[in-house]
């Protein structure tokens, strides 16, 4: 007999998400993803100055900060028909690169790790053994027995205080946790270390972007930080970049490999079918040809054939969402007319719309990016992916999984980080030649349409604008988390997370840590998805086992 489990709220994500699953014989047989907050940004934007849009849209999310700002700026650049100077492109790329580095480190350690790492078990570890294991996989400093002993003592003092704070009621001791105490201790030590590293990594944003979160140095036509293009600022950025890359190379990647080695069974759980990537990091004004991460779509896991992306094939469905109508519209003509009914998994159950490409649900994000790049023969990606598969001794098919998704995130962090060095040097070369241009003037047209396609840490992100009488007439965002976490579409096809959850084992329905693993592997980030869930009418709203 199948039973229903509701996890609400899903924590360690940005935003408000509710997951309901049906479990039979210890495995998930069906799943529904509901976004439970509607903010109405698209409605708020109507009638405003198009140049202001980016400041509003950046507030779609403070975790993905910058990306909705940049997406909007690119969208309005496109609408007004301006080509930005080379320096502005490089600064924007460097800020986006810094966003990936920061975001992926925080996701791995602070949002995802506790699904795999049992912090309480770390108290039982032998610090000397932990030091030996750590030194075997990484040359990082702070791997001495004394370092791990100090961390363990600190954790113990914390636990002994009886005030467990953030760690209260975790699923500690759950049989799905497989790491030995020593590896748990190493990971817990790096959880704390990463808390500090991320603050330093975020400083890269402040160097050319004023502050983080919510940068303030973009303008339509370029960037505003003309006075910051000096040797002091560039070396400050370079230093922070280098420090971050040391952490990525010597801590993040070795940790990923060490933890993954104990969870190889997750290489066949949590996969999806189709993948979409808009591509990112323009290397010149030519798009999509010059994109560092290529644009493409993969269907039915067929890596032999990457299709070109045609934005006209994107539609957003609202049949199972709390919006008026049943239609499926292209975002250029999209509507946002909220109409809450009640949460009914057979009917409407989310504030997210359901985006589809050519009618199909598409996974977006690190795995999609890495698969498209890999299939297109992108050299650094091919090398990194093959290296990780070999080290873990798993077949290529293991990429299509929760484990593959988590590994792809680490792989691309390293690849993007390495590419950033080249962009910094190009900036230096330009300045040496006397090219200090950061802005290209433009005229705001009476009416125009624009589109900005981006690939951001969580996946394919598109903004669409329609300008009339120099004001915003319509604005639509189709964001990564609606691609990944959106509900069923008009054809009742489940969204990627709903599909990925099917087959996930659940050892103890009261402590469904396995569900969190797959949901978190998508790095859900929901505030941008605009959307509520049902109140008290719903029988299962108390998310207990029913």
């Amino acid at each position, binding site marked *: 007999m199948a039973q229903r489990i509701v996890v609400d709220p*899903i*924590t*360690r994500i*940005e*935003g408000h998400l509710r997951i309901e699953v049906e479990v039979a014989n210890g495995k998930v047989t069906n799943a529904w993803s509901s976004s*439970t*907050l*509607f903010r*109405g*940004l698209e*409605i*708020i934007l109507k009638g*405003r100055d198009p140049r*202001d849009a980016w400041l*509003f849209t950046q*507030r779609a*999310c*403070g*975790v993905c*900060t910058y990306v909705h700002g940049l997406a909007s700026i690119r969208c309005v650049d496109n609408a007004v028909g301006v080509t930005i100077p080379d320096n502005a492109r490089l600064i924007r790329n460097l800020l986006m690169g810094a966003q990936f580095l920061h975001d992926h480190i925080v996701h791995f350690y602070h949002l995802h790790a506790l699904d795999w790492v049992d*912090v309480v078990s770390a108290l039982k570890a032998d610090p000397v053994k932990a030091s030996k294991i750590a030194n075997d996989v990484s040359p990082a400093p702070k791997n001495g027995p004394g370092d791990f002993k*100090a961390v363990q*003592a*600190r954790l113990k003092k914390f636990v002994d205080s009886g*005030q467990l*704070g*953030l760690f*209260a*009621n975790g*699923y500690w001791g759950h049989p799905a946790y497989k790491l030995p105490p020593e590896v748990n201790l190493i990971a817990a030590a790096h959880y704390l270390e990463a*808390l500090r590293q991320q*603050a330093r990594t*975020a*400083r890269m944003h*402040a*160097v*050319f*972007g*004023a*502050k*983080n*979160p919510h940068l303030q*140095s973009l303008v339509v036509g*370029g*960037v*505003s*930080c003309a*006075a*910051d*293009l000096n040797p002091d600022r560039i070396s400050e950025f370079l230093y922070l970049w280098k420090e971050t890359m040391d952490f990525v190379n010597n801590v993040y990647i070795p940790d990923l490999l060490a933890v993954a080695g104990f969870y190889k069974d997750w290489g066949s759980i949590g996969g999806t079918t189709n993948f979409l990537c808009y591509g990112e990091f323009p290397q010149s004004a030519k798009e999509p040809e010059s994109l560092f991460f290529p644009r493409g779509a993969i269907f039915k896991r067929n890596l032999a054939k990457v299709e070109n992306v045609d934005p006209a094939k994107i539609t957003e469905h609202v049949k199972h969402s709390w919006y008026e109508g049943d239609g499926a519209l292209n975002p250029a003509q999209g509507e946002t007319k909220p109409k*809450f009914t009640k949460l009914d998994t057979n009917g409407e159950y989310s504030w997210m719309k359901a985006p589809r490409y050519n009618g199909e649900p598409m996974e977006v994000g690190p795995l999609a990016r890495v698969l498209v790049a890999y299939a297109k023969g992108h050299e650094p990606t091919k090398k990194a992916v093959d290296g990780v598969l070999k080290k873990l001794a798993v077949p290529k098919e293991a990429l299509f999984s929760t484990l593959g998704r988590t590994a792809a995130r680490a792989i691309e962090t390293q690849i993007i980080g390495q590419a950033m060095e080249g962009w910094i040097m190009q900036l230096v070369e330009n300045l040496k030649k006397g090219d200090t241009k*950061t*802005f290209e003037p433009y005229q705001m047209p009476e009416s125009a349409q624009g589109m900005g396609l981006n690939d951001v840490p969580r996946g394919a992100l598109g903004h669409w604008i329609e300008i009339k009488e120099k004001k915003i007439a319509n604005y639509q965002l189709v964001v990564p988390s609606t691609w990944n976490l959106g509900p069923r579409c008009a054809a009742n096809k489940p969204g990627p997370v709903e599909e990925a959850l099917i087959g996930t084992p659940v050892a103890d329905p009261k402590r469904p840590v396995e569900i969190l693993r797959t949901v978190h592997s998508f790095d859900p980030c929901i*505030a941008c998805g605009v959307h509520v*869930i049902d*109140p*008290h009418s719903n029988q299962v*709203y*108390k*998310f207990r086992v029913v």
Partner: protein
Amino acid sequence: MELERKLQKGLEPKGVTRRDFMKFCTMVSATMGLAPSFAPKIAQALSSGPRPPVVYLHFAECTGCTEAVLRSTYPWIDELLLETISVDYHETIMAAAGHSVEEVLHQTVKKYEGKFICVVEGGIPTADNGIYGMIGGKTMLEIAKEVCPKSLAVLCIGSCSSFGGVQAAAPNPTGAKGVSDALADVLKVPVVNIPGCPPNPINFVGTVVNYLLFGKLPDLDDKKRPLFAYGKTVHDQCPRRSHFENGEFVKEWGSKEAQMGYCLYEMGCKGPETYNNCPLVKFNDGTSWPVEAGHPCIGCSEPNFWDAMSPFYQKL
């Protein structure tokens, strides 16, 4: 001396040098306008237990304020979480999920009724009985009404919980409001607004320190903002102020004037009407702030700034 030795002993195993810690304490006392001799007292306030319980609620928001607090460097965020305060409920970073975290929330509120600090991030949707924002099957409005009045004090972090924020911008489709406004009928405990989009974490930490040190909340202005942070306008503290006085203005992005760091008034800077300490403390460990990056202030710590201060690139 005794105190200093004790502190040194307590902090070193955490990987914090005494110098780091005192640097923070001096910075906080400077932010709060206290004499430097207060620095050791702040250090003591921050490192003696038991840790005050904190319930951190997320409503209609973007999590940018949480992210801002995570960037705290003096003290580092791990010290705040492990040794300074006890964050018993915080959806973005807590280990548990679903039913288990709901239990934590209820237990904390019950156990520490009248004693916990309630931090709120995000506006509260009030239209259509609050159905635009729900957590665990309850509206955010219901949760706020249930939890906030039982706290010792409510700290509203960011412009959304202070004044409604971006979702409250016209036409405010969800009827989003700040905490003081949404809970006007039921809330009797003190409220401190720490606006900004997001606010500088130093102003949040400064408020907490004020409480730990003096056992009371800081002095506030008429918008419930701590005077130590929001007592002067950005314009009055701006390092580009002399350019304003000399009539030296940027008139186009990327121009020579922009490269020379002239005044951004003509480009739409809202510094003259905005109360905040950005030019003084700057962001991300003192790295920069909007005007330094050549961009006008958008007035993000003022009520209703999304409507009142926009279009943002239009001269005041």
